């Protein structure tokens, strides 16, 4: 399948290692470092039970990342649909045999570890969509029929994830997919049309929402109405964050988090704890690091010479952005509470692994940026 005539399409492993964007990995480590520090604080100044395990996971994650980065992008292209299919099977399996945790059926138990197939689906969907649009010309994308398959590719997992129910992941999948559709060149009026339909569907969706999901939306709209009920999380998060001030209360000196007023302080709400102890400066520093990572994501997408790589890099960057934005906006009371972790910082194994896999793919795009692929993945023969 691969042509031997193009040198740039073949690279010795040593060179690939040299091509890996080590500074980006350093950035990721810095971000994860914020996480370790906050998990250490959340445990009351102890590595146990969170920080040490998070560190171990990150170490494994870096290894996985590097392994994925040096793997030829054409392999990823080739097996994109296969990964998608596997992820889909797992999602169905969750439906049938998943473990119920925290009120939702999201987990699959393997011998020694549990994981969330929905996290796998996020990456797989990006791969599959990038693959699909790689094969379509600008004209193809304008044809509505051409869009039928990718829309279905998005709709099926979104439907399955919604059934779990996991609103946060469903929204992430849809928004990330929308970003890819947009980048692939789908006309803007189509987004407008879909948006209008979505607005029209709000009353119907409202009917379909679970009680707790409705509560979350309602308490977002007016958190003070039920301060000890579902509005509690938002109010306490804002209190913790606001009381931190510019410089924060100092490392390990936070009160709201340590006194358990903060919910889920080591997972979804870890940013509030960070902002309470390290202040606005700490929060902005983390935000800047995320910004830098995004910037490098853009640079990688821009410099890729194949459409698959461009789309994949942008998809991953957008997904990453969505994680960060939704999580931070949520804890600051800008959007309703949806269960989205802060990537690399929140405690959690599957999410960490999913992010590392995604960045592995991003770096793979970077390493193989000069690989030229034809419509079906081979060397471009136009």
């Amino acid at each position: 399948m691969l042509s031997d005539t193009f040198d740039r399409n073949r690279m010795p492993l040593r060179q690939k290692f040299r091509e890996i964007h080590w500074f980006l990995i350093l950035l990721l480590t810095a971000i994860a470092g914020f996480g370790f520090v906050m998990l250490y604080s959340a445990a009351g100044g102890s590595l146990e039970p969170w920080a040490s395990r998070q560190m171990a996971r990150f170490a494994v994650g870096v290894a996985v990342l590097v392994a994925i980065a040096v793997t030829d992008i054409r392999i990823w292209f080739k097996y994109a649909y296969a990964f998608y299919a596997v992820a889909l099977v797992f999602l169905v399996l969750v439906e049938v045999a998943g473990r119920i945790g925290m009120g939702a059926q999201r987990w699959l138990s393997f011998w020694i570890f549990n994981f969330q197939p929905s996290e796998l689906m996020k990456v797989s969907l990006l791969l599959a969509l990038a693959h699909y649009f790689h094969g379509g010309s600008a004209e193809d994308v304008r044809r509505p029929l051409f869009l039928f398959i990718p829309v279905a590719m998005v709709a099926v997992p979104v439907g399955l994830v919604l059934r779990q129910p996991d609103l946060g992941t469903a929204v992430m999948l849809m928004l990330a997919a929308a970003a890819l559709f947009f980048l692939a060149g789908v006309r803007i009026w189509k987004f407008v049309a879909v948006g209008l339909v979505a607005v029209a569907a709000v009353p119907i969706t409202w009917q379909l929402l679970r009680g707790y999901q409705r509560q979350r939306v309602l308490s977002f709209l007016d958190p003070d109405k039920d301060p000890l009920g579902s509005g509690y999380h938002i109010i306490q998060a804002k209190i913790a964050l606001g009381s931190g001030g510019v410089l924060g209360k100092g490392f390990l000196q936070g009160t709201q988090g340590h006194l358990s007023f903060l919910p889920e302080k080591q997972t979804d709400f870890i940013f509030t704890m960070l902002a309470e102890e390290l202040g606005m400066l700490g929060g902005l520093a983390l935000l800047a690091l995320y910004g830098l990572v995004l910037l490098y994501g853009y640079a990688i997408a821009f410099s890729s010479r194949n459409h698959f790589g461009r789309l994949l890099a942008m998809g991953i960057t957008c997904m990453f952005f969505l994680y960060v934005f939704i999580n931070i906006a949520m804890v600051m009371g800008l959007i309703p509470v949806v269960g989205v972790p802060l990537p690399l910082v929140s405690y959690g194994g599957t999410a960490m692994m999913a992010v590392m896999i995604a960045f592995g793919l991003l770096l793979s795009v970077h390493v193989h940026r000069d690989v030229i692929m034809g419509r079906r993945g081979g060397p471009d023969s136009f």
Partner: protein
Amino acid sequence: MLRDAERQKLFTRRMALLAGGKLALFSLLAGRMYYLQVLESDRYKTLADENRINLRLLPPPRGRIVDRYGAPLAVNERNFRVLVTPEQAGDLEATLHAIGKIVPVSEETSRRILREARRRRSFVPLTVRENLEWEDVARIEVNAPDLPGVMIDVGQTRRYLYPAETAHVLGYVAAVSERELTGDPLLELPGFRVGKSGVEKIHDLALRGTGGSSQVEVNAFGRVIRELARKEGQPGGEVRLTIDLELQKSVAKRLGDESASAVVLDVHTGEVLTLVSTPAYDPNAFNRGLSGEEWRNLNRDSLAPLVNKAITGLYAPGSTFKIAVALAALERGVVTPGQRVHCPGFLELGDARFHCWRKRGHGWVDLHTGISRSCDVYFYELARRLGVDRISQMANRLGLGVTHDLDLPGERAGLMPTRKWKLEATGVPWQGGETLIAGVGQGYILSTPLQLAIMTARLVNGGLAVTPRLTRELRVGFSEEIERRESTEPFKSLGLNPLHVELVRAATDAVVNEPGGTAYAARIAKRGFEMGGKTGTTQVRRISKAEREQGLKKSHELPWIERDHALFVGYAPVAAPRYAAAVVVEHGGGGGAVAAPIVRDILLLTQERGRRGDGVLRTAGRAGLTPSALNDAPLPGRTAPSGTGG
């Protein structure tokens, strides 16, 4: 390639668009951070502190109440409680069972605790038993290893050391009622007690002290993490009463099971040495909390144990009132001391016949014998000459029919009728016969035992308007600051002619000390301790003509509720009066036979205690201001002057 270039161009353009969007959204996050952490920061800092800082009130210990010598009457007792913390106990039911083997724990208590344990947070200790004996405490402590989560806690409860003797003076404390909430957060503490009656109520604020506070940091579940700051409160002040505990106890014992009351005053200072009302209730039971049944029984009791009869009991003063009538007549000049009135046993006014208590009459009676023999006809005549208004006016001057701001709630004024009052109150004009009845202290006239004691004191202290006092001093907290409750000015004179006062006083001397006096049998034989006084026997029902003709029944033949009230007002020593006493025994019978002996015993004891050489009973600090300084150490053997009026 061309197509791909086109695709790439589109891609790059849209990438830029997305980048712009992301930048905008990240700016939004930064802006929100600025808003929350800079602009609104102070508000959230306050909220954060409110979240975690809990103010806990530390109730101050209630001040003690002591008698005039400092003997404690009301104290705080350590209250040992067994508490159990469900979280530490593990199997709560088993733990309760284990406690039950050491101190009895009722089924009801067990159920209550199990119920509360489900409702409350598991680290909140629950009270199993209160008021434990020291032995039980020791046994629980010894078994502590087998009683996980069980601890002994020391609280404080009010304890009245002499409940039967001092209940009506001290009153009691009980849980705060909804109406009593004033905004003082102390009152909202669970288990806090406030004075509900008596001295406990009047001096509640002084006794209460001020609460301290402890700032504690709590976590989201309310568990205390640590104490941040502590402000000690001010313990309640000590109240020193004028009451002499030993005298109070003796008087209460002397009154026994009767429905009666007694008051002993220092005639110069107005200090109330004794104020007893029997029967009493148990104020400790009120603190503990009464059951509905207990409360109903107390209220239904015909002997009215809840009522302080000495200040709220209204009685017709009967013949003791003749002191006021005699003084009014002398002051108004309607009679001279020597002028005689004939008593054939009755007086006729219009169609009506007004009887003297002595059916065969007293013959010719002057002021001295009128009082000493308590001739009703003599006083019918004086009253007829005076008219009711002038009688009531004098009675008011002597302290009857008015309140005296005693440090006890519920003091009643009684009633000294006037013609105007009757017309306004009943719409019927005053009748002449009613004036005669008033002359012997019956009819509309009502007074309290305290007022009768005051009248007596004013008669024998040289005609000074002495007022009663129950509080000697208030000591604020543990400090040296003492608020003395003594009037610094001498009491004002009533403006009575000293000769008239002495005439009446001498006649009351004769009541007890002259053969033929109505209380001669109750005289104090001990030289230098002699008392004077006036008897009173008041009917509680109307005696019909038919009954009178059949011959009056003896007191013990009547049902208790129909028997006469027995009254006596007395003072001692006659040579230099120092103490005044009033006793009313409800349905006791004759004043001379029943009440006078009680006053005799009381006044004898009072004098003995006052002369025991410790001198504390003397009114130090007032020397030179009143005649009391001269009279402070009456010489033994000094003879009492005999009556001079007749």
